[in-house]
């Protein structure tokens, strides 16, 4: 068990952004700001799953969004505590700890605030090891841990408890509720025992975000930060290339995914290779001269070659020179079941994962 400091929270926010590479990190900043304020009077504990009793009830907390940013409709404050109470009431059992629904982006950081509000420790585990856009894309689902019941609560105080066990059906129902609740909603799902989370979760993912933040915020040279990151994450650089142009018409909307899509084309000026990144909520594909070099569930991040910090999609401009970094996802995702759920096939992409035999 460790009590997180203000510095840890800041680094966690940076790390959550690194692994998310989202369009706009404002939501992370908003939650980081709220947590920093709360820490002046409260504390939040980060525990490992082994520190819990195996039968203790734990639940994942996270925002499910349908394209709306937190900044556009700020939370009232009781959304997540309401969800946890609903789960406790339904299962007639106290929740002993919470864990992040995803280990990056806003869902990587907000459990700290929920932990402060609910007086619960945050488990250093999650069911994705990164972020995926669909709630059934989790290692708990792969481990046949039930996704429901799911508590969903919006900023208006409206709340629903979805009694569902089929995770694919749960995705449809929750997504529909989110639209009705205004564009985003707080959720508590995957209520399970600490034993189940220990067996099927991805562990150490919160601390990893903090470590990433520590390296990125270190005052050393960008090259030394880059090398330490590669070492920590076992990551590789696919290319150092200049942005050639952006497109945003590539995808059909077969999965009904929430946000608009885009493609980036970069030219590696050393090799003349053409690098193409396909994005839909996440980076899905990296093609080098048309050949797939990386594909989801690989974690793709764009780094500034000049400053070594994360470059978010909104800040990418033609002419920028970027490092395209590939970080391997949790090993579970490279199994046959993992790739089926969250690999190219999970996004209806007609390509094989380049490391499908890994």
């Amino acid at each position, binding site marked *: 068990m460790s009590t997180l400091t203000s510095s840890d929270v800041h680094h966690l926010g940076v790390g959550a952004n690194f692994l998310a590479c989202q369009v706009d990190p404002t939501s992370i900043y908003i939650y980081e700001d709220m947590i920093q304020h709360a820490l002046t009077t409260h504390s939040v504990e980060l525990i490992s799953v082994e520190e819990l009793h195996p039968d203790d009830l734990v639940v994942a907390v996270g925002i499910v969004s349908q394209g709306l940013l937190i900044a556009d409709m700020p939370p009232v404050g009781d959304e997540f505590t309401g969800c946890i109470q609903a789960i406790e009431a339904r299962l007639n059992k106290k929740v002993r700890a919470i864990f992040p629904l995803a280990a990056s982006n806003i869902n990587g950081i907000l459990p700290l605030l929920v932990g402060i509000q609910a007086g619960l420790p945050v488990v250093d585990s999650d069911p994705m090891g990164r972020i995926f856009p669909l709630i059934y894309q989790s290692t708990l689902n792969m481990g046949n841990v039930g996704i429901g019941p799911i508590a969903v609560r919006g900023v208006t105080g409206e709340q629903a408890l979805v009694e569902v066990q089929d995770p694919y059906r749960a995705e449809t129902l929750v997504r529909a509720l989110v639209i009705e609740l205004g564009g985003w909603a707080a959720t508590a799902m995957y209520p399970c025992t600490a034993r189940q989370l220990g067996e099927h979760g991805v562990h150490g993912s919160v601390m990893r975000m903090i470590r990433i933040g520590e390296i990125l915020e270190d005052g050393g040279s960008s090259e030394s930060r880059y090398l330490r990151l590669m070492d920590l994450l076992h990551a590789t650089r696919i290319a150092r290339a200049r942005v*050639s*142009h952006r*497109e945003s*018409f*590539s*995808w*059909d909307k077969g999965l009904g995914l929430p946000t608009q899509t885009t*493609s980036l*084309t970069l*030219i590696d000026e050393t090799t*003349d*290779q*053409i690098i*193409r990144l*396909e994005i839909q909520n996440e980076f899905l*594909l990296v*093609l080098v*001269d*048309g*050949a*797939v070099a990386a594909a989801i569930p690989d974690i793709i991040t764009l780094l500034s070659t000049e400053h070594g910090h994360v470059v978010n999609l909104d800040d990418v401009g033609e002419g920028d020179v970027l490092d395209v970094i590939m970080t391997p996802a949790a090993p579970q995702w490279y199994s046959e079941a993992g790739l089926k759920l969250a690999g190219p096939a999970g996004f209806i992409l*007609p*390509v094989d994962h380049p490391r499908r035999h890994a």
Partner: protein
Amino acid sequence: MPKPGATNLNMATLLAHGSLRAVKQLYVAPERAPVNGVVLVSQLEAIRRIPPNTVVVLSPDIGSGGWKVSAALRQAWERKASAVIVPESAYAASAVGLAERLGISLLAADTDPSRVALALAAEIGAMESVVDVELAGFARAVAGESTVNNVLKTLSHRLGAIHVTLEQYGIVLASAGTAGGDVIEVGIGIRSVDPSVPATLVARVPKTDGHDPGVVRMFLEIAAPSVQAAWMASEIRENEASTPTIALSEMGIPLPVSVGAQTPDETFPKLLAKLGWRDDQPYDAVWIARDPREPHRAGRTAVVRLLWRKVAPHRPLAEVLGGWLAIVPCPAEEEPSRLEQRLRAKIGASMTELGLSVGLSRRQTGARPLHAIVQEARIAAECARRLHEGSVASFAKLGIGAASVLVDDDAITSIARLILPALMAAPDREQIVRDALAFMDHQSSVTMAANSLDLHRNTMQTRLNRAKDVGITLNDPSQRLSIHLILCVLERTFLNDESGKQLPEN
């Protein structure tokens, strides 16, 4: 004559005049990629199974994302596809850049791509029918040829005059067409007259001419049975045609050495004329000798005969004891040296590789001297073998010198070791032999010998004194013939032995 190709279609033709003339050219590769097929794909993975030289037409489904066009281009490039055709609205600027980088044509169809695919398929189908007809015509053409050279000429002509050869032991037995520079070799094995040593039919395809090696191989395979048949048939014809020459051998040629023995024309006064030998015709005899230490190899005759065709295609080559014999009737006005030049130019190198030697007689007119010219050719061939294996020797040039060539070198060298030990032990023995020979060859004139070696007379005299010191007697008429013979053999032995120091032991 059209270039070979399964369809003879290429991208340039299709874009200029064919079914692709209406498509938008986003990027056209500079190379005239051949087109053998077309495939309409709705799944990216289908591209992995296409054969080379295929036009890939992407359905509107697959063309919905720009990245799919990029991936399709990459996979098409890996499969050596001729081009990728996308729906008009599907391509992206980066895909055009990628096509240019990969060097594969990218086209956009403003109508339903399946219509383009169908039109192209129809054009290819029509062309394939033409190709089938062409192949059948080629098969008929080569089947009608009766000589290997004519089969090869037909084959070369059909393939755009490329160089085609029939080879065995790495030796070109017959060829047609023009040898090019940067080529791809396409070869197939064929059964030769000697089944234990297969021959090879080879086409050398210029890399720049856009020939499809697979198609060239197909033409070779069609021509192969005709090559084999023509080769076998020529052997049969050659055996029949060489009967009169063989008869010379059967009638006692080579002649016995004894003086006074009857010549064949004396023994069989009318038979030679009945065999076709004419009294008013000048003849040359050519003897190809094999090394008597080498075992006779079945099928070697067929190879030698194919080579012989390069020299005298219409004169039979008879297999006789110790080698092969041809009697070549020559036009009276032809220079006697022409045949020797042809022998050297056409088969000299091949004879060397095969370990054979060629002897050429002096030209004689009529049937009566036939026995003599055969003897001359045989002796010249033996001299050629002794002088330098694989060389061509002319009896006219050898003249009486043939006698010294044919002496037993080992015996003479042994005598030299016994009689002239100081010479044989001398470190400058090669120079001594050369100097003494020059003296004897120039009528014992020191001045002329010095001139022939480009030396001063006094130097020559000093060297002759050196020869005397090592035991060479140059002024005793009774020893002159023997000394000259020993010197000739030693010089030849030194020449044949590169080191000049490894003389044969007793």
